[in-house]
């Protein structure tokens, strides 16, 4: 394309993007169409990718297409395999896409659609995509080393230790919160519980199909599993209407929590690959399909957003979670804008598949843009709901009251009209007894998604099927993360304990397997139980804790990235990682301060403990007080970790920039690629 035409095209994209952002930012009063959000996102990503990522690739990282990657140099047909860039892109996206970008924006929608949307766009382009891109490239240049190893080598022992503790913390807190989301979605829902229970025999069937009938034909088995899961969703309707089945599958939150804890332990300690591997495939299949379906649904329906741009809860009094926009919107959105966890994927499997350095831009930066788009779709799914319905679903009973009429009156008094009849009618439409007090984001997202799907395909009559499809998708997805995460945590603990006493590190020694599994499951199970018993719904306390630990890991990743950039002699360009790092530090420090010391009992753990202490002295109260104090300690430990790694990194930067230390980059030596342009794809 001629240069002139290219310039005109990019000017048009810029103008369109500005128009879309201005429209969503200044429009007040009448509801706006969701396509404005889609347009703002697409234009922002296009500009960010074309200009900012290209600048980073050319000036900061100086990508070299002639340098052989570890996939080429160390090719072994197993871990290191040169792979087509589009295939790696799909693989990387499937690995980074989790429930975070779906749940976080739904919870943050309590502030209105504007804060979440702006942060998802700006955060992704300037922070999340940059982090994923630079860490991927640095790992490629270090033979596919992991983040923790890079932290240890480039920053120092403290860096490595902090990265290790951050990974363990985030795994434990994430699993606790994820399990709580499933519990809140399935409690008192025979339909949902039946469907999820059926995924266990379905996974076994898939396992047998793969093992005995058609070895290795995973796609076939996944399609078969998907058809069976769809049948299970229809079966769930029968289960909810049949009195005996309904009684069996109607479970309370504590019962579900106990079942999930037992499941997590079994998945970690027993050799149940016949169940877990097929379910993992099924979950990925459903995940990718549903994300694609939601994108098509939004484009086909072009729904109207009923949530205002900003709600009154920007003042910090929100029912979903307490706290002002800054810092809590940024902590809550998490993975849709920046996720420390992505740095683990970018320094895991992906760098071992890349054919040439220049592809890291498309895979690292590009896949995070796709993840960010998922967060925008989640914002749309939440904001198409009438605000009264959204708050009815997401507000805990401790805030709005137990009785439907009282809850509806409370929400209406906030300026979001809803009646008990409205809530009953929507619950009936989706085949549930009630939708009150369904905190955690998943049910609200499922109702929004069902709304979009039902209006696109099938109408109101299939709303209940779509709702339970969405619940199945989220629960299946989260349970897969639970079992995989528990095993990863177990291996990490075993690796660490192996340094103390060798047998503890042996992954085949049963006492060690049982002990470490119990330790990991006990840790996240504790957070889950705490959330289930919390009268404020648990999400209010636990999601911010998860957000803080996730951003802490991103802080570690950005410290590693900045240190390497400084060592490369590119101090002038260190701002590309230093600015997001400074932002994350300000967000995590402020959020942690508020979570520990804020005098408002709905925000500060210590204030809440204090409030309970002056109340009646019951055993329940003393447990809640202990939980609050423990949460405060966990938050404090996380902040000490951030401070340590920041200090060690800053000292390293100063030493190098003042010439007191020679910059010693631990890159693999340059080897000229032998792959032809065609082989590189």
């Amino acid at each position: 394309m001629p240069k002139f035409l290219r310039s005109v095209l990019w000017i048009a994209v810029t103008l369109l993007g500005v128009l879309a952002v201005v429209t969503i930012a200044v429009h007040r009063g009448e509801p706006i169409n969701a396509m404005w959000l889609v347009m703002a996102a697409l234009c922002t990503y296009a500009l960010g990718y074309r200009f900012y990522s290209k600048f980073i690739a050319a000036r900061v990282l100086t990508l070299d297409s002639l340098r052989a990657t570890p996939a080429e140099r160390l090719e072994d047909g197993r871990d290191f395999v040169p792979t087509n860039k589009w295939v790696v892109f799909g693989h990387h996206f499937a690995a980074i896409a989790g429930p975070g970008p779906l749940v976080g924006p739904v919870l943050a929608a309590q502030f209105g659609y504007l804060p979440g949307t702006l942060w998802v766009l700006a955060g992704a382009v300037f922070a999340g995509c940059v982090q994923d891109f630079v860490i991927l490239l640095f790992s490629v240049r270090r033979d596919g080393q992991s983040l923790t190893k890079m932290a240890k080598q480039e920053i120092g022992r403290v860096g490595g230790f902090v990265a290790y503790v951050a990974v363990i913390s985030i795994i434990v807190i994430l699993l606790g919160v994820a399990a709580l989301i499933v519990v809140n979605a399935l409690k008192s829902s025979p339909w949902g519980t039946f469907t999820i229970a059926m995924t266990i025999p379905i996974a076994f069937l898939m396992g047998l199909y793969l093992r005995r009938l058609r070895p290795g034909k995973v796609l076939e088995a996944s399609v078969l599993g998907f058809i069976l899961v769809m049948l299970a969703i229809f079966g769930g309707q029968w289960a909810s209407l049949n009195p005996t089945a309904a009684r069996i599958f109607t479970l309370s939150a504590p019962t579900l929590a106990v079942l999930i804890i037992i499941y997590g332990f079994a998945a970690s300690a027993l050799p149940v690959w016949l169940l877990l591997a097929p379910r993992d495939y099924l979950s990925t299949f459903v995940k990718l399909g549903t994300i694609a379906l939601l994108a098509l649904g939004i484009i086909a329906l072009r729904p109207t957003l009923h949530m205002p741009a900003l709600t009154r809860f920007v003042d910090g009094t929100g029912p979903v979670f307490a706290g002002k926009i800054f810092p809590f919107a940024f902590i809550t959105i998490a993975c849709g804008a920046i996720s420390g966890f992505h740095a683990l994927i970018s320094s895991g499997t992906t760098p071992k598949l890349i054919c040439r350095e220049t592809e890291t831009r498309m895979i690292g930066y590009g896949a995070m843009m796709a993840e960010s788009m998922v967060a925008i779709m989640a914002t749309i799914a939440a904001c198409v709901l009438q605000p009264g319905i959204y708050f009815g679903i997401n507000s805990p009973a401790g805030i709005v009251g137990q009785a439907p009429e009282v809850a509806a009156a409370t929400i209406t008094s906030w300026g979001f009209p809803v009646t008990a009849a409205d809530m009953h009618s929507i619950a009936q439409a989706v085949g549930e007894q009630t939708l009150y007090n369904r905190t955690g984001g998943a049910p609200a997202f499922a109702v929004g998604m069902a709304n979009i799907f039902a209006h696109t395909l099938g109408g109101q009559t299939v709303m209940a099927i779509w709702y339970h499809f969405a619940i199945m998708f989220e629960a299946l997805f989260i349970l897969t993360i639970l079992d995989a995460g528990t095993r990863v945590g177990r291996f990490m603990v075993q690796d660490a304990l192996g340094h103390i006493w060798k047998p503890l590190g042996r992954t085949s020694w049963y006492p060690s397997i049982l002990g470490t599994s119990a330790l990991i499951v006990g840790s996240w199970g504790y957070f889950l139980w705490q959330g289930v018993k919390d009268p404020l719904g648990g999400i209010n306390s636990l999601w911010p804790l998860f957000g803080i630990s996730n951003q802490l890991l991103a802080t570690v990743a950005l410290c590693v990235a900045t240190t390497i950039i400084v060592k490369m002699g590119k101090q002038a360009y260190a701002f590309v990682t230093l600015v997001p790092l400074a932002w994350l530090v300000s967000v995590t420090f402020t959020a942690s301060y508020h979570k520990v010391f804020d005098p408002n009992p709905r925000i500060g753990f210590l204030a809440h403990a204090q409030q309970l202490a002056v109340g009646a002295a019951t055993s329940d109260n003393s447990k809640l007080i202990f939980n609050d104090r423990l949460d405060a300690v966990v938050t404090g430990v996380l902040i000490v970790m951030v401070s340590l790694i920041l200090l060690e990194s800053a000292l390293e930067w100063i030493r190098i920039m003042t010439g007191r230390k020679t910059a010693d980059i631990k890159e693999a030596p340059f080897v000229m690629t032998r792959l032809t342009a065609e082989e590189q794809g």
Partner: protein
Amino acid sequence: MKSKAQIFAYVTNRAAAAVSVVGTTLSLLRAMLREIFDESAYARFLTRNRLASSPDAYGVFVREQAAAKSRRPRCC
């Protein structure tokens, strides 16, 4: 003024190019799915170990794969 033959050739070329783009896209999509769902990894395993696909070979592959996958964190 282009002759009918020239127009026909042009249209045929464009159609062939479009079919080729669709074909490439579909084969990439297939390759992507095969990689995500470990079918490619299984094929590489069979090649590496000079085995034919069988329930036993798949059993060995699954065990090997499970050991590697268990250590990979899953994203949030």
